[in-house]
C-alpha cells in the first residue's frame, strides 16, 4: 500500500490521520499485506463463501408498533442537540 492509496482509504473511511500515523500505518501494513498473499496459495476453486458461521438465514418479524426508548434519555449521549434533534453543521448552502 502506498501513501496515496492509504490517504484515499482514510478519506473513504472519513478518518483524519496525522502524518506520523500515516507513516506508522504504512510501515505496519506493508509486511502484513505481503503475508496476506499466503491466502492466495489456498485452492478455493468451486468453494462458496461463508458470511455467517451458523444461522445463515434471513429472519423476518411482524411489522409491529412498540414503545421506543425515551427520546430524551437516548439524546443525553448526543454531543450536540437541540430539543429532540441532533445538531449538525449546515449541509445545504443558502
Amino acid at each position, binding site marked *: 500500500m502506498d501513501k496515496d492509496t492509504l490517504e484515499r482509504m482514510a478519506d473513504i473511511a472519513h478518518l483524519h490521520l496525522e502524518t506520523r*500515523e500515516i507513516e506508522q500505518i504504512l510501515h505496519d501494513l506493508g509486511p502484513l499485506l505481503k503475508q496476506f498473499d499466503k491466502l492466495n496459495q489456498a485452492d478455493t476453486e468451486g468453494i462458496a463463501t461463508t458470511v455467517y458461521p451458523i444461522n445463515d438465514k434471513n429472519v423476518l418479524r411482524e411489522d409491529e408498533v412498540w414503545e421506543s426508548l425515551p427520546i430524551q434519555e437516548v439524546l443525553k449521549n448526543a454531543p450536540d442537540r437541540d430539543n429532540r434533534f441532533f445538531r449538525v453543521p*449546515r449541509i445545504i448552502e443558502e
Partner: protein
Amino acid sequence: MLELDKLSIHIAHEMLIKKEVSSEELTKAFLERIEDVDEKTKAYVTLNGDKALEESREIDKSGDIKEYLAGIPLAVKDNICTKDLRTTCSSKMLENFVPPYDATVIAKLKDKNAIVLGKTNMDEFALGSSTENSYFFTSKNPWNLERVPGSSASAAAVAASEALYALDSDTGGALRQSASFCGVVGLKPTYGRVSRFGLAATASSMDTVGPIAKNVKDCAIVLNAISGIDSFDPTSSDAVVPDFLKSLESKPEGAKIGIPKEFFGDEVAEDVKSAVINAAKTFENLGYVCEEISLPHAEYALWAYLAIVAAEASSELGIYDGIRYGYRAQNYEDLKDLYKKSRGEAFGLEAKWHIILGTYLSDDKYYDKYYLKAQKIRTLIKQDFVAAFEKYDFLITPTTPTTAFKIGEYAGDSMSMYANVMCTAPVNLAGLPAISVPCGFAQDMPIGLQIIGKAFDEAGILQLAYTFEENTDYHRKQIVWKEA
C-alpha cells in the same frame, strides 16, 4: 471473614440460602477487595459500588435469592451495554457514553438479581491481545504484574477475586486467551447461542458473549442464565437450550478426542505443548481415546481471520460519527470534516489501522483477492472441523501459543501479537463452542487447555472440562502476588 479466593458461585449461593452470609456482606467484601488490589491489577475502568450495595440490600430485604446468581456480584467487560452505567469500550470515542438500555445478557442476569460491580478494561473496541490498546491504561496479570492479562481484564478481575465471575466477549479469542493467561475458566459459546444485542460490535460474524469463572460448574451456571434466542438479535439461535449444570452430572462416556497437529507448530512454546500433551494423557488414563488429527487449512486461518476482522471492524466502527453519540471534535470546517476529525481524534492507532486495512480489503480493486478469498477459506476451515467432528467428539489444543507475555513485549509490533490468537481464531471462523481450562504452569504462569466442541454442544465441552477439573488441581492453585 469471607475467604474470597476460595469462593465460587455455587458455594456463595449455598451460603446465601443458609443465611451464612448476606448479599450486602458479599458485595461489600468484593468492593473491599477491589479497593485493596485493583491499584495493582487495574482491571476496572468504572465501578458501580454504591449502586451495587444498594441493590444487594434490596435483595437481602426481599429474600429473593432462590436463583443461582441472585445476590452474587459480577464484573462486565466494558463493551457490553449496562443501563445508566458508563460503557466505554476502553475508547476515547465512548469515554462518556452511558447506555439508555441493558444488553440482553445483562437484562437476563438482572432478572435473576445478579449484582454488577463494575466494568472491566479491554483493548479499544476489542482490537488487540493485551489491553495495551486501551485508551485509559494497561491492566496487569495478577500472577505477575509485569505481564499482560490478555485482551480483556475481566479474567484478571476473576483471578484476583475482584468479582466472583464475569461476562466477557470473544471475537478471535479474547475471552479464552484472557482466561488462559489468568488461570481461570472461560467459555465461548456457539455463535448464536447467546444474544449479542447490546454488545458493541467488533466483527459481528464472529463476536460472542460468554462467561469467565473460577471453575467449570460456575461457567455452566452462568451459561444457563444467558443462553437462548432473542428477537433483538436475528443471528441468535432457536436451538434447544439444555440445562448445562445438570449435564455435569453425567460423563462424556466413550468420547473420542482429536488433537489437531497444526496447533502445535513452532510458534507454540515447549512448556505449553507438554502441558497439553499431559492433559491428553490424563484423558487417556480416564479411558478416552486421544488421536492426532489434521485440520489442513488451519495454516490459513490467522490471515483469513485478520482479513475478515479488519473488513468487519472497519464497517462496524463506521457508526461512530460524532453526531448521535460519542466524541465530537471541537474544531471542524463542515460535516465531512466533523466526521474525519471526530474519528481521527477519538480512535487509537490500532482501531485506525484496522479501519484502513478493512477499507482497503473491501475496496473494489482488492475485494476478490483478499476479502472474498478469506470468506472462501472460512468455508474450508469450517469444513475441516465438520470432517473432524464426524470421527471425534472433541478437539483439544493449547488456548494460546505462550503464557502471558510481558507488557511492552510487542510494542510497535501489533502484527506479531496477532499470532496470539492462532489457536482460538479458527474456532470463531467456524462459529464453534470452546472452553479454556487451566492445565499447567510455566515459570509460575498459567497455561490453558482449549476444548473445542461441535456446534451447540456446550454441554459436551463442559462435561469434558469438568471431568478434567475433577482429576487435576490446576484450578485450585492460589495466586502468589509478585510485585512489578
